[in-house]
């Protein structure tokens, strides 16, 4: 049986993939959308945040993106991509469980994966990557537990802490991860504090000027940490305990407690560890672009800490170094869902052009403008140094794969 042929195969039905599929299908191209989840939307529909005076609800965005698809878009949901081979000339073979498909152009919109925080005991059932708690509660109204500890001061952790308000969680604390050789990318605790002040994410509004003041000023910061209340500050329904680190998760068959230890204003352990009961632990180690397919498909890539890791180099219209292969969304660097949607549209037009369609100049301007706007309005950056990393990525891309 020969695989079905499409103009475009979109891998990943998250915000970027859906937006691209919308552009391509409305332009009259035969599109296949593949995702390993049973429903489209990716992580989008568990997301929710305030945008100025309004609320930005990912679930509504999914509905909008799906209803904007032209009829005739084909779906392969609950389907993983095993490999991508071939070329634009002969068509890209997209190997799927039970068969495959051929696309003249392929969009890689595979999103991001979470970076773990490997503390002893993190393999116990009840220890979740923080995104899993988001899916449980925001997605399906299943509370993650009653007493929880979030380890790590990543923005996603703060966002989830806020979302868990109303989930029936009796106590929730955010604590620091202990330094480890395997998480050297996080730096020392003072470096993590400084990053927190830089991002100022999740901080109550009144704290933001303070955070800005403290960022980059080691002396002031140490003083502030010396004054930091041992029991932490209330932030978005959780206690933010910057002077505690989680040494280990304890339990037999699942999480029963967490071993904690105080640290001094320099981030060094102070005093004897103790345990506190908990029935769930969320690890907020951050996100990284999930680039398995971009690596396997052999597109040129570069490493950018500010983008979250290894990402493909792309033209301004999101074409990779291999003709016909495009990338959009978090696979290009961890940014907001609105950025992913804008990138998806841009890549969609890029693919239309690649497929021989004509793209009116105002479409490009519109798509590029939307991307700029989404970036300017981003409520927070997922990694420090995002702006600088984006510039470096742009410059490297321009040099290696073109404007």
């Amino acid at each position, binding site marked *: 049986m020969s695989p079905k042929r499409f103009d475009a195969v979109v891998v990943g039905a998250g915000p970027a993939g859906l937006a691209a599929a919308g552009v391509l299908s409305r332009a009259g191209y035969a599109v296949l959308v593949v995702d390993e989840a049973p429903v489209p939307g990716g992580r989008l529909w568990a997301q929710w945040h305030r945008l100025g005076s309004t609320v930005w609800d990912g679930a509504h965005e999914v509905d909008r993106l799906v209803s904007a698809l032209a009829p005739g878009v084909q779906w392969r949901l609950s389907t993983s991509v095993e490999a991508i*081979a071939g070329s634009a000339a002969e068509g890209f073979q997209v*190997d799927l469980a039970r068969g495959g498909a051929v696309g003249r152009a392929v969009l890689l919109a595979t999103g991001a994966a979470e970076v773990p925080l490997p503390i002893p005991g993190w393999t116990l059932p009840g220890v979740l990557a923080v995104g899993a708690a988001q899916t449980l509660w925001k997605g399906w109204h299943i509370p993650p537990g009653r007493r929880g500890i979030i380890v790590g001061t990543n923005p996603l952790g703060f966002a989830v802490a806020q979302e868990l308000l109303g989930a029936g969680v009796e106590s929730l604390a955010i604590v620091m991860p202990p330094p480890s050789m395997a998480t050297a990318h996080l730096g020392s605790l003072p470096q993590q504090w400084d990053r927190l002040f830089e991002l100022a994410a999740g901080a109550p509004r009144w704290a933001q000027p303070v955070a800005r003041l403290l960022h980059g000023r080691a002396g002031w910061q140490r003083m502030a940490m010396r004054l930091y209340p041992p029991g932490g500050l209330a932030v978005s329904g959780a206690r933010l305990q910057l002077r505690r680190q989680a040494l280990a998760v304890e339990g037999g068959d699942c999480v029963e407690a967490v071993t904690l230890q105080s640290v001094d204003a320099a981030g060094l352990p102070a005093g004897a560890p103790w345990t506190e009961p908990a029935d769930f632990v969320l690890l907020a180690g951050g996100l990284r672009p999930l680039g398995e397919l971009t690596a396997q498909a052999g597109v040129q890539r570069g490493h950018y800490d500010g983008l979250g890791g290894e990402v493909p180099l792309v033209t301004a219209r999101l074409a990779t170094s291999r003709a016909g292969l495009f990338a959009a969304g978090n696979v290009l660097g961890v940014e907001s869902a609105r950025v992913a949607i804008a990138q998806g549209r841009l890549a969609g037009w890029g693919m239309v052009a690649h497929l021989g369609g004509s793209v009116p100049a105002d479409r490009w301007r519109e798509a590029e403008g939307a991307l700029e706007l989404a970036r300017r309005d981003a409520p927070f950056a997922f990694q420090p140094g995002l702006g600088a990393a984006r510039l470096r990525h742009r410059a490297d891309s321009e040099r290696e794969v073109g404007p």
Partner: protein
Amino acid sequence: MTGRAPQVVVVGAGVIGAAVTYVLSSAGVRVTLVDRGPLGGGTSSRCDGNVLVIDKDPGYQAEMAMLSQNLLREWAGDLGDIEYRRPGSYLALAGEDEEEPARAWVDAQCREGLAFRYLEYEETHRVMPDLAADVPGSVYSPTDSTLNPLAYVAALLAKSRHRGAQVRARSPVAEIRVEQGRAAGVGLADGTALVADAVVVAAGVWTPAVLAPLGVRLPIRPRRGHLVVSTKGPRYGDVKVMEFGYLMAKFGRERVVPPDVERFGVALVYEPTRAGNFVLGSSREFAGMDTEPDPAVLHAIVKRALRFYPGMARATVLRGFAGLRPWTPDHVPVVGPVPGVEGLYVAAGHEGDGIGLAAVTGRLIGDFILERTPPLPVAPLAVGRFQEETAEWA
């Protein structure tokens, strides 16, 4: 070479170079091993761990393999945990038409003094209860063993270092220096000169490229092989099983099989590993130096495995990988001195048997350099035996 310990440079830190280094450093020779990449980074980390006699032609090749097995058994105690074990191995028959050649194979090996046995239907299925019911019989070789290939390389190198060998990874060789018809050492790409009384080139499929600047041509070609690794799920017996047709593929003999099995030279290899996964092989193709796995080959390997193990339909493929066997036209490695350049040796071209034949190869190179009597005739391994083919492949 009197008055001081000889000095040898070995080029290529795969299993062959590591075994040569191990033998020489154990004999007190000062060895420097260099590799252009990480240690064991080529074929030795893209292969299985078979140490087999069962698939060797009766006679010289089987004798050489047997010698290597015995040497390895001696070395194993010194090398520590390299997952070495000796479970024996089996060749399963795909059909009744293979019965007669299989019995002839066993008879020929037994005449050479090897302990092969032909297993009738009942015994075959008692030992391998997961085999398809229509497998008519099997061949058994009790001495065959297996190990973890990269652990083997790492252990050989660790012991060699302990005995004074220098091991330099990521040190590409720019030139092999020859002075007045003698190998004088190597020059590294970073400008370092290594002086030596002898140079051994053990660079696997890269050997022809290393030797080409000296005008030495060898018909060693990369014959790619794929392997499939399962998840740690159900397993299908604790013995290593290949199909008798494996020999047909290996020696290019006629086989009646489906087109993709034929096209990729696929023959069943089933090997349970200590880690709890199992490995499925194999394929044989001339496909250049590309080691990116081809999903079509992985599928063909699994399809072939299901012909012998129908229950495997419940198992899960975790990954696939491909490596490059250093093939030679007569399926015999090239081990010995290079005619016309004194002190220059080649140890390469082991096709799919590098892991199995590393020990005997190390021993032979040691015997050449230390002027000891080799344990078997060396003429079949000679560098100069390819005069005619060389013209063809050069």
